[in-house]
């Protein structure tokens, strides 16, 4: 079954915004020194992927399957965030900083 031209137009309409969201998250991870802000960058990357999944599900007509996958993705996202925040708070407790430039204990 070939996709209708109109439905693919929707992908090209959403594409630039998804790419912008992805670049913003990626730039944040690379340019920041704060661990919490790096985690926010990871969140933005996940948002871009979620938006891409929803759009592709809408175009292909597989909305139920897409929603099931997105729910799984959200559950995993929350667990990753909880554990990452726990690790960040642990880092802060032992080093009294969230700046990655000061985390040199394992520098070898």
């Amino acid at each position, binding site marked *: 079954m070939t996709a209708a031209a109109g439905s693919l137009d929707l992908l090209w309409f959403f594409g630039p915004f998804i790419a912008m969201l992805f670049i913003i998250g990626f730039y944040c991870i690379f340019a920041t020194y704060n661990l919490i802000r790096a985690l926010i960058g990871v969140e933005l990357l996940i*948002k871009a992927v979620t938006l891409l999944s929803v*759009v592709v599900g809408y175009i292909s007509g597989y*909305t139920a399957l897409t929603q099931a996958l997105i729910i799984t993705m959200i559950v995993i996202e929350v667990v990753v*965030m*909880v554990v990452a925040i*726990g690790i960040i708070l642990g880092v*802060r407790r032992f080093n009294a900083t969230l700046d990655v430039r000061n985390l040199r204990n394992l520098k070898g």
Partner: protein
Amino acid sequence: MMIHLIILTTIVIAALWTIMTRSLLRAAIGLAAVSAALSVMMFRLSAPLAAVFELSVCTGLISVLFVSAISLTRSMTMDEVLQHAKERMRRFWFLPVLAVLVGIGVSFIHSTAAVRLPAPETVHDVRIVLWHLRRLDIIGQVIILLAGAFGVMILFKETK
């Protein structure tokens, strides 16, 4: 389409504000705004259950997690804030330009290749897909949730 454009622009502007704002608390609020706008977009794209999950979990729970983590950190003094603001501006002024350039660049990609879609979906109920067809995903979710719970328990274990 106009509504889609407005929501997408809101998402990108909120994301830019999240990254470029000085305060971590404002960044957490910006992230919640991105999630809320994304859930509206999901609702518009026929994914209401995923939209509810996104709104309740990502906008609610993750924002609360970030705000509580930020509240446990030390706030900066005024001198540190001014020094930090200058340094941040030096690193991040390029980001909006880069994002717009990438957006324009991607908008020129317009493939005319015929994409073959799979056969139409036979089951349209999310509950049946999630609980019957994707049963392994549910088991994986339970395992990951347990791993996360035990991980947090170990991380916050009180040492005598």
